[in-house]
Each structure stands twice: as C-alpha cells, then as structure tokens.
C-alpha cells in the first residue's frame, strides 16, 4: 500500500510525505523537504561578526528570537565577551516569550483542528470562541514581552552582542507582570482542553536530548543531557552529533552516536520535569506518570505545560530583574568587540522545537570565517521518519482519509519547522 502526501499543511514550511506499507508490519517512510536552500551559513562568511545575529534571526519567523539569542551567545563565546546577570535574566525572559509565541500558534491553530477532525481552522475558532480568545491572548502577551525587552515581536531590534541597546522600561515590565498573573489562570483552563485530547497510542524507544540546568528548568544555559551519560558541556557534546548529508536533500539530518534522536518539549519534560515549579509542575506530575514518555504525540501536552511554566516564570524573572537593581552600564552593550586573534565559539539554547546550536569562527579582522547552525528540526527529522515507519502498519486498516490524517497528526506533533531545518 502506497501513501503519498504532496504537502503537509499547518506546519512551518513545506514538507511532503511518501510511505509504503509492505507485508506484515514493515513499512517505508520518507519525509521530503520542498524548501529552497537560502545558504545562510555560506552567506555569513566574510561578513562582520555582528551581522550573524541579525541574519540568522531571518532563518525563521516562527522562532527568530532563539536564533538571535543563540547567535549572540555563540559570538560572545568566540569573542570572549561576558554579559551581566541582568542581561541573562532579560534574555531568559525573551526565550520564554518565544516559547509562548511559538507554542500558542502551534498548539491552538495548527494542532487542535486535527483532534476535532476539522480541516479549516477558522471554523474551529468560531466553535471554540472562548479558547480561541485565550490562545490569542497568550500570543498577544508573548509579542508584548518581546517588544518591551527585545524591541519588536518578530526579528528583535534591541539585542546586541554584550547586552541591549535600550534599557527596558520599568513600568512596562511591571505591567507585563500584572498581565501574566491574569493570563496564568486562563492558561490553566486552556490546558484542560489539551489534557483531554485523545492522543493516539504510540510508543517507540528513542534518545531524548536537551539542555539541563542543575538550578532550574531553563532554556538559556546549562549542559547537554542525553540518557547514556552525565550532562556535558556544549563543546564536548557537539562532536557526538553528526549532520548527515545526502544528495538532493537540503536538510542535514542529525544523528547522535549513529542513531536518530528527539529534541523539543517532550525531550525537555522527560529530562527536566523535576525542575518545573508551580502550576506547571502539578500538571506535569498528573499527566506524565512514567519516568519517560516514548509517545511522541505527548510533545503536544509537553508544550502546553511549558506555556504555563513560561507565563509563571516571566513574572518571577521580571521580579528578579527589578530587585536586582541593575544600572544602564550592566545592560547597555558596547559597540566594538573585534577580536585580537582568530577565534571559535559555540552556543546552545532551547528553542521551541528543541536544542539549537550556533558555531562560529571569526578572524582577527572581525569577519566570519565559518558559521554552522544546527537546528532542532534538522536534528529530529530522521527521528520523525523512524517514528512514522513504526506508526504506519497501525494505520493499514483505516480508510484513506483517516490514515492520512493520522500521518499528518504525527508530523504536526513534532512541530517541524522546515525553514529552520533548511536555512
């Protein structure tokens, strides 16, 4: 039985699927990327170091903040720039606004229609008016957080190597705190909807990789955590993954020690759920009763838990920032960090879809000699394909429409971002 889906809608970018269910429980599956290569890494070469955060932000309009911040971190590592605790707090808040922006779009507008068997999202938004408004409020709040601290909701304009251009307005920060408290209650109600979705029964053992920070559930810094060894530093971890290239494939697919692996919300929840706090912790404990969930559809609920966590944490982090009493000089960045000699840097952050790595080599003239971006979707694309191979035989007795819907549901559960994967 052959299955061909020309384009999977309701994901970021263009992806097709080809499958073949053979005798017994054997199946072939192939996800195919229909995106042009923009050669972002190639065009960085020869440009000044501070073009990297600006240009790599344009890799993705769904998650521009994480590319921008990961690029800043990696460049700072290369150039030997230290940032203050205040700058770190503000960046942590920005990463959380990014999680909210991306997860709220994915969960509500891209995923939910599947579970109500509705092809047209607009119809669903009318049937679920209250929930639609809640989801839109989360999105609007996250945009506002990005604007107050980062200068703009999409493609930040206030972040720089070494810090920020403008000190965020204290009154605006306090307003965000107030808003976050109101929003938390609504988000907890919205979580009920996602808790009760009928997630398909699926399980396949795989490796879950994420940043783990020993102090908190964090997206900004920490060690890289895989199940088979103690968490290790980013530069130690990078040699363990390979970017596999093949002819005609614009995506370099990730491998960890020769096998596919999963990154993203489910990986983070599996690895770090004990570090959650407040409402998010309660929800995670009630839903994720096993040590590790191997059901990739649970990535959806894991995202919902992170939404709750981020709304609570933004409030707490703003409190910490204000109490820290930081001065202009702690936050405002200098202009010139041209290195004295050839240098290398690595940076990693947790993006909505998983761990993101940027790696740069800068020459003593301040120009980039090499750039490498390893995006979450490029890392998990092979894992998605491997999941689909195991999932397909379960679908062979369904009618065509239902079978295709289930395949798309699995693709969407991963929340792939094809612009990121290709870049």
């Amino acid at each position, binding site marked *: 039985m052959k299955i061909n889906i020309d384009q999977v*809608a*309701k*994901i*970021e*970018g*263009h992806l097709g699927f080809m499958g073949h269910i053979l005798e017994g429980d054997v199946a072939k599956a192939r996800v195919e990327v*229909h*995106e*042009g*290569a*923009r*050669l*972002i*890494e*190639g*065009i960085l*070469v*020869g*440009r000044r170091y501070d*073009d990297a955060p*600006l*240009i790599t932000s*344009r890799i*993705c*309009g*769904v998650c*521009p903040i994480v590319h921008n911040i990961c690029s800043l971190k990696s460049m700072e590592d290369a150039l030997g720039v230290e940032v203050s605790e205040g700058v770190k707090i503000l960046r942590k808040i920005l990463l959380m606004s990014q999680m909210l922006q991306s997860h709220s*779009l994915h969960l509500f*507008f*891209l995923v939910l229609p599947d579970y109500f068997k509705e*092809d*047209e*999202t*607009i119809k669903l*938004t009318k049937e679920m008016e209250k929930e*639609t408004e809640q989801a*839109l409020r989360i*999105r*609007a709040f996250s*945009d506002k957080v990005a604007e107050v601290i980062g*200068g*703009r*909701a*999409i*493609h930040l*304009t*206030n*972040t720089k190597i070494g810090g*920020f*251009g*403008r000190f965020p307005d204290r009154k605006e920060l306090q307003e965000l705190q107030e808003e976050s408290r109101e929003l938390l209650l609504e988000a907890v109600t919205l979580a009920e909807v996602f808790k009760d979705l009928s997630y398909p029964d699926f399980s396949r053992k795989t490796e879950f990789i994420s940043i783990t920070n020993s102090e908190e559930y964090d997206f900004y810094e920490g060690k890289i955590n895989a199940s088979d060894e103690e968490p290790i530093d980013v530069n130690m971890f990078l040699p363990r993954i390979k970017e596999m*290239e*093949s*002819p*005609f494939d*614009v995506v370099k697919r990730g491998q960890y020690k020769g096998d596919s692996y999963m990154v993203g919300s489910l990986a983070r929840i599996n690895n770090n759920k004990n570090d959650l706090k407040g409402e998010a912790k309660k929800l995670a404990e009630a839903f994720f009763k096993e040590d590790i969930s191997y059901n990739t559809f649970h990535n959806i609920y894991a995202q919902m838990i992170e939404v709750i966590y981020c709304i609570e944490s933004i409030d707490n982090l703003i409190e910490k920032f204000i109490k820290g009493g930081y001065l202009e000089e702690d936050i405002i960045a200098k202009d010139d960090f041209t290195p004295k000699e050839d240098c290398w840097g690595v940076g990693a952050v947790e993006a909505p879809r998983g761990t993101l790595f940027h790696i740069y080599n800068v020459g003593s003239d301040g120009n980039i000699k*090499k750039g490498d971006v390893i995006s979450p979707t490029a890392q998990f694309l092979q894992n998605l394909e491997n999941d689909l191979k195991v999932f397909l035989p379960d679908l062979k007795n369904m009618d065509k429409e239902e079978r295709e819907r289930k395949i*798309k549901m699995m693709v969407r559960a991963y929340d792939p971002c094809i*612009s990121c994967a*290709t870049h």
Partner: protein
Amino acid sequence: MSKKIKIGMISLTSCEGCRIAILKLGKRILDLSDKIDFSECSYLEDTPWPDNFDIVFIEGTPITKRELGVLKEARRRSKKLIALGNCAALGGVQEIKNYHNKEEVLRKTYKYYNSIENPEIKGIKEFVDVDFTIPGCPINSEEFLEVVTKILNGEDPKILQVPVCKDCPRAGSERCFLNQNKICFGPWTLGGCGSPCPGNALPCLACRGFREGVNVDMMEKTLEKFATKEEIENRLEVFGLLDEYKKLKNKK
C-alpha cells in the same frame, strides 16, 4: 450578503515571519473572516487551491523550480497579486549571495552541492506582475490590515512616502546614528515601520526599500563623509538593496 473575497496566502522560501506578523492582529484578523475567505493558507487550511483568487499575497522568493511554478500559477489564478515583505519585494537576506560568488557560497554550505538548486535570488516582480507591495522585514501588521481594508472597500491602497526618521526617537539629536558617523539608511528609506530598529539598538538597513524619487547620490555623499564605498555597499547587501541602488545610480 455580498460575496466573500477569496484570499490566498502563499509562501515561497523565506522565514515565513510576514504571515506570522499578521497573527499579531489577533482577533481583528479573525473578525475579517466574515468578509474574507482564506481559500489558501497552509496555516489554516488543508484544502486544495480554488480556480480563482481575488488577491494572493506572496511571501518569500522562488528558489526551487517548483516554487517558480507556484508563483506563476498564483499569478494566473488571481486578480491581484501583492508582494508581502522584504524577500518577495527585494530578495531578502538570501540575496546576499548574488553579490558574491554564489557557487562558492553553495560549496561552503553543502557537501553534495551539485544536487542543490542555487539560482540567482530576485524579488518576485522579476518573474510576475506585482500589483502592490507591503514592505518590511517583517511587514508591519497594521499596514497589512490597512491595505486589506482599503481593498475590501474598493479603494486603492497607498503607503505614505515618508522617511523612517519620521518616527525615530534619535532623529535630530546627537544620538542619531548619522551624527555618530554610523551608516544608517533612515532618511532615504520608506517609513511606516514605526522605526523599531534605530528606535532601539540597530541602524536602519532599508528593509522596506528606498522612498520614491530618492537621490542616491546625495545619500552616497552624506555617507562617504565617514564610510567607504565598500562599507556602504556591504550594508545595502543585507536586505537585497544593492542592485536597486546601482540601478538608481545608473539612471542618472
């Protein structure tokens, strides 16, 4: 009840940030769905294209042959075609490779470079007729709503030809990037963005394109007081403006 307007939101290779920017309108965009039928938007629908559109918005640049076909087919089926954002209008950051050795850029990025499509990047007006352009990287969502509302009311959309400096808090002060001898294209760039770049940390890189009738020689003269020709051209590369700039220079 009058017939709904059929809209297509079509995305070619890009970051897709312009369609995401529209989401910022929140409920206001959903409210429009009484007047608009989103006949094709891969974020909202899982259905095939209709035979005809009233308006298609194109985001991104065509890189693969498949995308070029999509662009031409969209033009064929639509009464109006609108370029959405910097990539569609001017080529976007992916155009940087045009100004260097693009084959070498490809070889630096991929091992199996022979199998990767690597055309010269161009704004979509080089391939199809474009009726209107909503500029920016990303677009200003309020501007998008204004344009759509005008079209729904049967009026011609328009973007005021004012400079970015109009909304810039640095303008006229010592904080002005130009007064600090830093390249900023604010005075020559089409405003309406609210000046979020120079309003914060970054000089204007003209993502919205030049204003109509701008004198690029004057611009060059101003900037050459403190910057080299190469430095100016390097900044114009970022959002695909360098070729436009050279065309304007040659016109004189």
